[in-house]
């Protein structure tokens, strides 16, 4: 099976690259071993949240200029970064995802534990704070779903109480009540599956009654309302009489899962092939160090051939990187890795401190080409968290690195693709 580009990894990085390439006329295949880490996304994405001393960053575009040359953003270059950043919201809007935010000015998101983190873009409808703890003036009503175990209103109240008086209330509905039969499995996605149609109207009426009782000026509820099939999330916000903001729950994230499904459906609708639940078993590299084809568990002896390959297989959680007793490695191609020599140096004793394994990954040159035993592989690129050079947790940059490296690599591939035609 012949493609222009094969992408290994179907999360946000792989899909951004795939959609960019497909939109430009390329034939693209994405191989994804199971669902992606996007399912753990909070509904917000970060570009650069903390500087090297751990202080919050206000203008990520400015702060990018101070990063070391080994950082993925530095490899892309500040000018190219700025040009690509200007297109990100439109890119997602074309795929059907509305994001709010500004690359020159971070806002804050709230975590399910009630902490505030700098963010770049948030899904439309999610709680966006202009400074920690400041969402709106007046009384805030926090509404939880009865029996729902993945959202903790007390943490949210605690986080907001310096600024606002908060009231906590619970709502329910016969259709949601049914889910409590399997209490341990009453998860965000199962709840979102029943909040459609008339249930949206009923819940809106209940919330409006609570607003009257409490005199609330704004409402926060867990992000358990979906965005697929007729946008019940937007409908509920429209029906509630005061501004309604969704706050992230513990995973699975409804917003993240719907982003994944929306992007994948869009990729397929513009002609991309998405191989879900398949794992790359081996790769064929010729004498010139070019990747010719890959083989997968499901397709067996059918090779997937392409001119270019993108490795967007994610970090440890997605098995893009493996940590064995002895070393950190990249399992498909055996690419050169940038990581501390000694296993003892991977982690710090303090769990909240930076851990070196977080910035370990595939070593790449300035065009994101990885290498095998020192020899660059010219038709292979490493996008997103599989590559080394940043600590996405400490600096709050995971989504930004995933999206921007993918866009940059896709543009590089298209330069020679157009040239060929």
């Amino acid at each position, binding site marked *: 099976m012949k493609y222009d580009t094969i992408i290994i990894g179907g999360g946000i990085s792989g899909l951004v690259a795939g959609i960019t390439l497909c939109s430009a006329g390329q034939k693209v295949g994405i191989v994804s071993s199971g669902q992606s880490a996007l399912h753990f996304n909070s509904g917000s994405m970060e570009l650069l949240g903390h500087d090297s001393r751990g202080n919050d960053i206000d203008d990520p575009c400015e702060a990018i200029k101070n990063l070391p040359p080994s950082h993925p953003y530095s490899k892309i270059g500040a000018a190219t970064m700025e040009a690509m950043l200007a297109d990100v919201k439109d890119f997602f809007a074309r795929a059907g995802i509305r994001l709010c935010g500004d690359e020159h000015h971070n806002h804050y998101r709230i975590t399910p534990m009630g902490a505030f983190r700098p963010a770049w873009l948030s899904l439309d409808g999610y709680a966006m704070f202009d400074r920690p703890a400041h969402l709106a003036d007046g009384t805030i009503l926090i509404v939880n779903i009865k029996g729902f175990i993945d959202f903790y209103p007390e943490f949210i109240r605690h986080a907001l109480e310096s600024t606002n008086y908060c009231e906590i209330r619970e709502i329910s509905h016969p259709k949601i009540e049914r889910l409590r039969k*399997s209490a*341990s*499995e009453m998860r965000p*996605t199962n709840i979102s599956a029943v909040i459609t149609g008339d249930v949206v109207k009923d819940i809106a009426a209940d919330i409006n009654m609570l607003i009257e009782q409490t005199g609330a000026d704004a409402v926060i509820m867990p992000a358990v309302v979906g965005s697929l099939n007729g946008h019940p999330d937007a409908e509920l916000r429209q029906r509630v009489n005061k501004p309604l903001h969704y706050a992230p729950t513990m995973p699975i994230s409804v917003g993240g899962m719907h982003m994944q499904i929306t992007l994948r459906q869009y990729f397929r609708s513009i002609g991309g092939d998405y191989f879900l*639940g398949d794992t790359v078993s081996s790769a064929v590299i010729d004498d010139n160090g070019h990747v010719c084809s890959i083989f997968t568990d499901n397709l067996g002896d059918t090779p997937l051939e392409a001119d270019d390959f993108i490795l967007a297989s994610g970090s440890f959680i997605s098995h893009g990187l493996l940590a*064995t007793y002895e070393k950190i490695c990249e399992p498909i191609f055996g690419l050169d890795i940038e990581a501390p020599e000694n296993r003892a140096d991977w982690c710090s004793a303090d769990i909240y401190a930076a851990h070196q394994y977080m910035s370990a990954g595939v070593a790449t040159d300035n065009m994101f080409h990885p290498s095998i035993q020192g020899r660059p592989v010219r038709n292979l690129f490493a996008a997103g968290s599989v590559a080394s050079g940043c600590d996405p947790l400490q600096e709050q940059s995971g989504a930004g690195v995933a999206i921007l490296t993918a866009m940059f690599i896709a543009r590089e591939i298209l330069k020679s693709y157009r040239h060929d035609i």
Partner: protein
Amino acid sequence: MTYKSDNISPNNFEECIKCTICTAYCPVSAVNPSYPGPKQAGPDGERYRLKKPSFYDEALKYCLNCKRCEVACPSGVRVGDIIQSARIRYAKSKPSLRDRLLADTDFVGTLSSAFAPIVNPTLRTRPVKMLMHSVLGVDSHRQFPAYSRSRFTSWYRRHKQEQEKYPRQVAYFHGCYVEYNNPALGIDFVKIMNALGFGVRLLDKERCCGVAKIANGLIDKARHDAEINIESIRRAGCPVLTTSSTCTLTMREEYPHLLGIDNSDVRESIQLAVRFIFSLVDRGEATLVFRDDIHETIAYHTPCHMSRLGWAIYPVSLLKMAPGLTLRVLPQNCCGIAGTYGFKKENYNVSQQIGQQLFDSIAEFNPDSVATDCETCKWQIEMSTPYKVENPISILARMIDFEKTRLANS
């Protein structure tokens, strides 16, 4: 010593990271809160069951064995296998007469096709449906697939000699559906293979793949049939092609994982005809010439077991080659029937609720017909929507110019 051999059981339940992605994509969890969901039923429950078998939860019977949990799992855990193995090992409820009848496709098929002119109209009458509903527990909404009066193998015997003339040979595992219900599909397959220059043999002995027996707890019978099939496949000594995604998945994956039958020497030779034909064309070893006078719009539905095989690309790529076809791949949703599951009256409503998203997506596209590689998906879609459903092989047979294809490959 590797990390895996140190820490991981054969059914790899330890590799579960408790992310619950499987539950988010489980079609049963979405509509039936009595089902604990694949994470709880699978890797979570396994830890308890290993400790004490009495932790087994009879609600595991609600699992469709659609394997969507396995397709979704980012950690490669065989969630569906863990659940089905637990049912085999621990379930106390014995299969009822109804379950035995639904499971024994060979026995029922043999009888029914012998008396097809009587059986087909009788099964459609209201009194018989009500009787089956109340006495057996087979839901009265269900339409039984019509039994064919003549079997596929009877047709084949009349054409056996001409098949032997071809220098290149493949074997065909026709399955119960082609044998008893739809011999025309088997005939389409033989015609296509002949046009590509291949003769078709049958296996020495073919039994039902066993999927219905496994689902209904008749494990010893399933294993007995599976051993006969694998032995026949071994003797065939050539590619063994199929036209049903479920038979294929069962023989390739369920035999070793659920029945403990080692098929490693022949697993790769068992494949869907669409994969074999696509590979021939892809490697330039065969040419398909299509008619230019047919124009149709087709929606392709990916059966759950086709998703698990990861093979939807093959029928889709083949159908896309036909210039007269406008093809759309529907969003992947379970049709809800899951073989014999949807025939049981206690499952009927859940089954239809699960399928609703698929039925809606077909209606929205409004194709001339639907293509799918699974016979039970076909029954479910034809019962629940006004659309006709065909196997991609039968659609190909309509689109191919046989004369020109034969010339191009001779």
